[in-house]
């Protein structure tokens, strides 16, 4: 299905990352947006509230982030493409209902414009320290999808991508941007609507008597219905069977949790996406995501000028993690160098994936600003030693 031209602001624009996310959501056909103001994400909902009356859809400023996230799950089940937007403290408040979205297999998108934490931290300054929280911040076991844009242009495209993936896999999909990308203004080219491909939610064609709302389809994803379609479904956050009815025993738990996890893990090859550069004969690979992937460029150039063979693996989809590719590369290289604006989150996943074949060297940053490229350069130098 192609995007609706009335929702797509085709043309060349100068937008900041937050505004580009808003345009991405509208282009993706998002018709329900719930939000609560929080720096540095507020501009997303500000732009949406300005645009939505003439584009079609509903924006509501909820009383808190618990409410925003709960409303998003409800709206998803009524058939809307639903979005909420937040940053650190609000993200923490959303956790319980993110778990509900996983359990109810409600397609939805959450944009987290990361800032420095913990707690109120640095409201106006950047961070990348919610990368583990996004994965397992809600209690229980589950898998989600998370993307990490490094420019306003990518904010636009990755928001659309997040909607497509969330609709396809019936799972919350996250756009993990950050204050730097959110507030930087760059050229954003918005293509014509017929160049934007949208994934259409798979609604069942079975009659109500035959339909089981949580019976997995071929890719482990159940076909959906929406409230009001006459199927009279029941959906619960309790462990449930294919009918959606609660079942309180370990067998039902095993069956359900395993499928929730496997519907992402087994489809990882379809979901995973990254960019590679000069990895063929690399001795060092710089593995990065989001804003850190741009800050690393001068460091890579400097190292290459000295004759060090530095390749790049830049994550577009962070979760699920491209563990297969990381392992393949690990057998040919000396080390991965991982700059991130935290004290070691994605680097743990790199360490796990290399199975001891090479080193994983973290270049940490506490947040509030991006790395000095010199620090990343020193990380590369250390790696070749």
């Amino acid at each position, binding site marked *: 299905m192609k995007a609706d031209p009335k929702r797509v602001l085709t043309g060349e624009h100068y937008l900041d990352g937050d505004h580009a996310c808003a345009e991405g959501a509208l282009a993706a056909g998002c018709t329900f947006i719930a939000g609560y103001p929080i720096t540095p994400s507020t501009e997303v909902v500000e732009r949406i509230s300005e645009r939505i009356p003439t584009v079609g859809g509903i924006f509501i400023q909820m009383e808190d982030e618990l409410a925003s996230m709960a409303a998003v799950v409800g709206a998803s089940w009524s058939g809307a493409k639903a979005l909420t937007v937040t940053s650190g403290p609000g993200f923490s408040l959303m956790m319980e209902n993110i778990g509900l979205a996983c359990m109810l297999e409600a397609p939805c998108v959450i944009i987290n414009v990361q800032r420095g934490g913990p707690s109120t931290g640095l409201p106006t300054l950047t961070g990348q320290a919610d990368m583990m929280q996004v994965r397992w911040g809600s209690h229980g076991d589950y898998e989600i999808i998370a993307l990490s844009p490094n420019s306003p242009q990518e904010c636009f495209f990755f928001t659309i991508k997040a909607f497509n993936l969330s609709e396809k896999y019936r799972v919350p999909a996250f756009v993990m941007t950050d204050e730097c990308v959110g507030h930087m203004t760059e050229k954003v080219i918005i293509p014509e609507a017929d160049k934007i491909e949208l994934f259409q939610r798979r609604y069942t064609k079975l009659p109500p008597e035959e339909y089981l709302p949580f019976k997995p389809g071929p890719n482990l994803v159940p076909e959906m219905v*929406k409230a*009001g379609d006459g199927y009279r479904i029941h959906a619960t956050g309790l462990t449930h069977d294919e009918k959606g009815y609660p079942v309180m025993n370990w067998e039902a738990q095993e069956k359900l949790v395993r499928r929730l996890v496997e519907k992402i893990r087994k489809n990882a090859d379809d979901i995973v996406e990254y960019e590679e550069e000069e990895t063929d004969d690399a001795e060092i690979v710089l593995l990065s995501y989001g804003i850190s992937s741009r800050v690393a460029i001068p460091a890579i150039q400097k190292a290459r000028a000295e004759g060090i063979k530095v390749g790049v693996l830049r994550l577009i989809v962070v979760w699920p993690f491209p563990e297969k590719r990381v392992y393949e590369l690990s057998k040919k290289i000396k080390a991965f160098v991982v700059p991130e604006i935290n004290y070691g989150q994605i680097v743990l996943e790199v360490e796990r994936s290399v199975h001891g074949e090479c080193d994983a060297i973290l270049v940490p940053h506490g947040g509030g600003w991006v790395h000095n490229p010199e620090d990343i350069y020193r990380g590369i130098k250390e790696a070749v030693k």
Partner: protein
Amino acid sequence: MNETLTKEMGVIEEKHPMENILRMDRIPHIWCPTCGIGIAVTSFAIALEKSKIPLDQVCVVSGIGCSGRVAGYVKLDSFHSTHGRAIPFATGLKLGNPKLKTVVFSGDGDIIGIGGNHFIHSARRNMDMLVLCINNFIYAMTGGQLAATTPLTANTSTSPYGNYETPFNLPYLADSCGAVYVARWTVLHVRRLANSITEALNKKGFSFIEIICPCSTIYARRNRLGSGLDLMKFYHDNSIIKHGANTKELDIGFQQKIIVGKFVDRERPTFLESLNDWNRKVFGDKFKEYGGPDDGD
């Protein structure tokens, strides 16, 4: 009854009168004998039939608790959400598809305790939904802890020497936040409650009905009030019907008189009416009213 016996006796097997609305494949339910929640569900079922609202459009949302299990037993699109968040979940359903009729059915702890913030804001916005709140004065499902509705001096497992916190007066709270319909009944008043639910179902905007309900296993036992039946008798002897009563005067003391009735019935533009009217004013023909996911153009 065994089938041969039924035949021999010539007994006609009738359908359960509420089969249209109950998930018979989930019965027996989990509620204790003489718990009042089932009676509230009966009143709701009667009201739904009377209201003539197409059942396919009705969505029931519950939070967590004994009362929160209602969503699991009604044969309607039904959602068992998280503790306290039934109201925002229903808000999403309604705004995602404005054609739906949303009913929140949950407990006092859920709607007023942990979910109180959503309650006051939804009443303020006049969000289209009917909120049915089972008030059993306690957190029953977790074993009988203090609630924001526990009467002064009542015993709970976390106020084992008696409650010294002032409880909420729910109709007053709903009224002052802007609810367009506010009533209180006990589950003894099955027909009155059903009529009230029918009336509220046919109203636009935020309607609220408090349903006083026996928790025989926990509240009654801890406070030595006898069985569920004894509580029903207490309601019989101690409820006073007073329509239009000043909601300020509806506090409930421990084993004191309970004033019931319809207290508020007024008109106010709903959230969606206000949103649409305002945008039509501002944008004229350029405003694109959202009618739900099936409203393609």
